[in-house]
């Protein structure tokens, strides 16, 4: 296993993309970390049938 990618992360400034719960975005901002929040919504309006079709189409 080549884990140099993980070691590179340890040497870089942390820049986070937060997808989901806002509390994690808020907590990182409180700590002074760079973080962008993605206001995520369920694809296909959360409709399982449409989602299944979209997944089959690979989108």
């Amino acid at each position, binding site marked *: *296993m080549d*884990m140099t990618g993980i070691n590179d992360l*340890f040497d870089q400034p942390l*820049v986070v993309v937060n997808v989901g719960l*806002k509390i*994690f975005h808020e907590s990182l901002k409180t*700590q002074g970390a760079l973080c*962008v929040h993605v*206001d995520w919504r369920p694809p296909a309006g959360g409709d399982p049938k449409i989602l299944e079709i979209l997944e089959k189409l690979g989108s």
Partner: protein
Amino acid sequence: MITRNFVRRNHYSDSVSLMLLSSKLTKMPGVIGAAVMMATDNNKVLMRRSQLLLEESETASPSDMIIALKVEGEEMLAEVQNVVEDFFSKTGRSANFTENDPVVRTQDMALKMFEGANLAIISIPGRYAAREAKKALERDLHVLLFSDNVSLEDEKELKKMAVAKGLLMMGPDCGTSIINGYGLGFANAVRKGGIGLVAASGTGLQEVSCIINKHGGGISQAIGTGGRDVKSSVGGIMMMAGLQALSSDHDTEVIVLVSKPPDKPVLDQILEVAGNAGKPVVSCFLGAVYGKVPDNVLTVRTLEEAAIRSIELSASNKGLHVEYPASGTRIREVAESGSCSFRPPQRFLRGLFSGGTLCYEALLLLSPVLGDIYSNIPFEPRLKLLDPGKSIGHTLLDLGDDYFTESRPHPMIDASYRVERFEKEASDPETAVILLDVVLGYGSHPDPAGVLVDPVSKARTSALLEGRNIIVIASVCGTPDDPQDLTRQEEKLREAGVLVMPSNAQASALATAIISMGR
């Protein structure tokens, strides 16, 4: 009494926010029941079961939000609706951001705007989580996947993909990590130092890192893997990847591994990798049976011992005064000063935990002395509570388990159910000792000790009036730099008459001593 449903079409909000709102509404005077949920099939079942769902809402779609209320009278509705409106105006989608924050809808938009992004935290419903995590890995982001309900197949695929690219895939069901000094998920404000952690246990990682902090040590990196990582089905992929990364990390002097016992073949593989780490490794696999371990690996029994041994082994901390866990004699002294004779039929211990691993550690330490302990996460199937809502004999509960969190927030975020359950246990004439954990940190309840003060004081007073003496023991997992402040939280508990111990292991030892003395 009237039941009303209000449906907001195409209005999405995350489940934690909605559960907190539901909890807030339920506490209002005149409100008998309340649930605010996205109208997924599963949520509709939960609302139906609580008799909160009206027929008119059955057709609501998963993108709709249902506000279901059962109130004493019509006049309450307006008041409740005001609270709901106020909640959404403050925490709704427009309030997700400060004025300068852009509204971003997808990872790709985020990456375009934020050049240099290197890690994604994903906390969305399990059904969608693997897809979003894969997207992040494809874009060379390390991932912390907080979501649960992700299939084993997906977990394995994601971790293999991550390892092939040299990326971290922390989770699914990873509650905490500390990367480059920043706490991700539910983490504590610990100082930087030379001890690196890899943990398949959220509160295990928190307890070890906080005790290291308490004794003057510090953390280089703390990598969460998600609890299933050490099972044969996943094969310890991320624990071994994390271990290797920390082995070559120049800031890490000692590595600590934390988990419930890995499956045997996985344990052997992890120990083999640990043997080649080139630095000391402290292995804290709670309750594991080890065979031969490599020379550089030290096995320990408790989370506290893991923290203390790692400080001793850490070169940069040499010379620090390490306060050892209380000896048996000291514990007995505290037990003697704290305990009075119990009044029959008082004889049982009841433990109410918000941290799963803290509950597991307590079970591990208490069972050899107290014998059978019932739980929702027991060691033996025969000790599993058929109804976790009712304690039997000695009972320790993990209140963060799915049974308790299906329709309410995790107890680390909202203490309502724990308070309710505490009152129930305290009024049980068979209860002698109640054992609690209080977990601080980013994301956790802003004042978890504060919400316990009144119930503890009232319960102890009522018990005394009935000629009983209830002993309440707690340990606080946190640091003075946490938003809740460890010192202040401990003070609040002591003022309420709680015996506060410096670790979960010592709190468990004290509970054992008091129960044994009262026999």
